């Protein structure tokens, strides 16, 4: 690793064309993509929410399905951002050499990665929004505060996109991403308050969850969806912003090291 890899990012507005490129691909596959993105979270939300929820009393002062809806908005954003930056990102970086082609034009790797992170955040934003719309349609939320979910989901998308791009920069092949999913994404989804309140966990694990970005996204999303102001807004936003910024920067450093040898 050389010092030049650590220099601060220098962006140009041309990153927008990277975003537009990905949009054009997505538009060709939009319907199956949306349905695919929606199916998995819906199965969790409706299956667990109504099935398991029927046997449960109120959780955190609301029906279990409403409790779960807020968590699933965040986790589906996480999933979508991770898949996009890892599997699709790796295709563009390593298999199709799309990034190499772009860097022969007047764009730099910094622009490419910014375009990719904003793109993946946009795509995962749609996933989060799709779940939110279903929750609204089912009457699981009806507060005006829910509008704050919109920027929150985008921020969460940036967080998990940046983290995904770190994995992509390190990855020798597609198989590598399985480690990240089984060792990071799935455990995080289980202990960050998506399926049950973090308070149910032993204190030691609760402390761990405080370091995980998904915990902070859920901690903001759930009260907003149930119509109450979240506690510690600044803290949660600070953690998410720090993850987004540090994740992106680290991804950039690692990708520079990989591609700009």
């Amino acid at each position, binding site marked *: 690793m050389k010092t*030049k890899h650590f220099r601060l990012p220098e962006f*140009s507005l*041309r990153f927008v*064309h990277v975003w*537009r*490129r990905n949009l*054009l*691909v997505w538009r*060709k596959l939009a319907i199956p993509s949306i349905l695919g993105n929606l199916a998995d979270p819906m199965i969790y939300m409706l299956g667990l929410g109504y099935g398991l929820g029927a046997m449960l009393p109120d959780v955190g002062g609301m029906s279990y399905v409403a409790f779960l809806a807020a968590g699933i908005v965040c986790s589906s954003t996480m999933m979508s951002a991770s898949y996009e930056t890892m599997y699709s990102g790796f295709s563009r970086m390593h298999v*199709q*050499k*799309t990034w*190499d*082609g*772009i*860097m*022969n*034009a*007047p*764009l*730099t790797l910094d622009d490419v990665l910014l375009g990719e992170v904003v793109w993946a955040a946009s795509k995962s934003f749609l996933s989060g929004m799709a779940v939110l719309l279903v929750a609204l349609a089912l009457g699981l939320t009806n507060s005006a505060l829910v509008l704050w979910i919109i920027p929150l989901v985008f921020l969460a998308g940036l967080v998990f996109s940046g983290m995904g791009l770190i994995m992509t920069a390190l990855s020798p092949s597609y198989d590598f991403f399985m480690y990240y999913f089984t060792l990071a994404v799935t455990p995080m989804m289980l202990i960050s308050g998506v399926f049950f309140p973090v308070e149910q966990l032993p204190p030691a694990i609760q402390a761990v969850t405080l370091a995980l970005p998904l915990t902070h996204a859920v901690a903001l999303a759930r009260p907003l969806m149930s119509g109450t102001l979240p506690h510690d807004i600044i803290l949660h936003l600070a953690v998410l912003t720090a993850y987004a910024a540090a994740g992106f920067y680290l991804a950039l450093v690692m990708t520079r090291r990989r591609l*700009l*040898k």
Partner: protein
Amino acid sequence: MTPLPHLNVSKLRKSYDGHEVVSGIDFELRRGECFGLLGPNGAGKTTTLRLCLGLTDPDSGTITMFGLPVPQNAREARVRIGVVPQNDNLDPDFTVRENLLVYGRYFGLATSEVERRIPALLEFAGLHTRGGSKILELSGGMKRRLTLARALINDPDLIFLDEPTSGLDPQARHLIWERLRNLMNQGKTLFLTTHFMDEAERLCHRLAIMDRGRIVACGAPRELIARHIEPQVIEVYGEDAERWAQEYGMRASERCEKTGETFFCYTHDADPIVHHLDARPNLRYLHRPANLEDVFLKLTGRELRD
């Protein structure tokens, strides 16, 4: 005053993990010429190209493109260049036309402007009936031509071509060469890397032969042949070639070298050798004028490079 060269490279060095890949090279590209960089695999051609594009930083030395320092102002310089990479990186998700559209936007061109340029480029690439085709439906030659058209979307002054005809059949290669000559006639400057000698001899005004990170010779193809090689070559092969070379060939020629099972006899006067061979029907031979490949093999050696 002579016009500023499009690209000037001076005392360029680059090493990876203590192994020097580019060891102090100098060259320049004059406006409107086709300059070739030749070398065996691993000679440092692709690294040189990446350095010139500003994709990697040199350890020392300077690169100036259109008067701009590279890599510092590489982004600005790249506005005026086109690149045909060694391996096609066309977008498989897009049609032929979309590939050009998306690529043109990277240069900051408006969609309408790119769309205005596309028909002429498709015509140039012989793909005017394939605008709506998927990349997977194209042959290797078509993909190369599309990659070339894509490199022209910003109407560049300087075009980098990294082994542009590798993997193509002879028909497809001739078509690419014809298009490249067409570009030269339009006044474009070309920077070509290749290990095909016929390609270099055909296209390049000047070329540099690179080996182990150094430029070992530089000049016009004819001039390099005249400077480094005897004008006549007789290639001798067949079962008895070895014995013939030992007994006669090595003595009768000025230089005699072996590659594989063929003996190459270099000389100024081929007649005596040809007469000698004509009397020996069990030996097969080819008498020809010296070419760039002879220069290349003499300067870079005959052993295999991997």
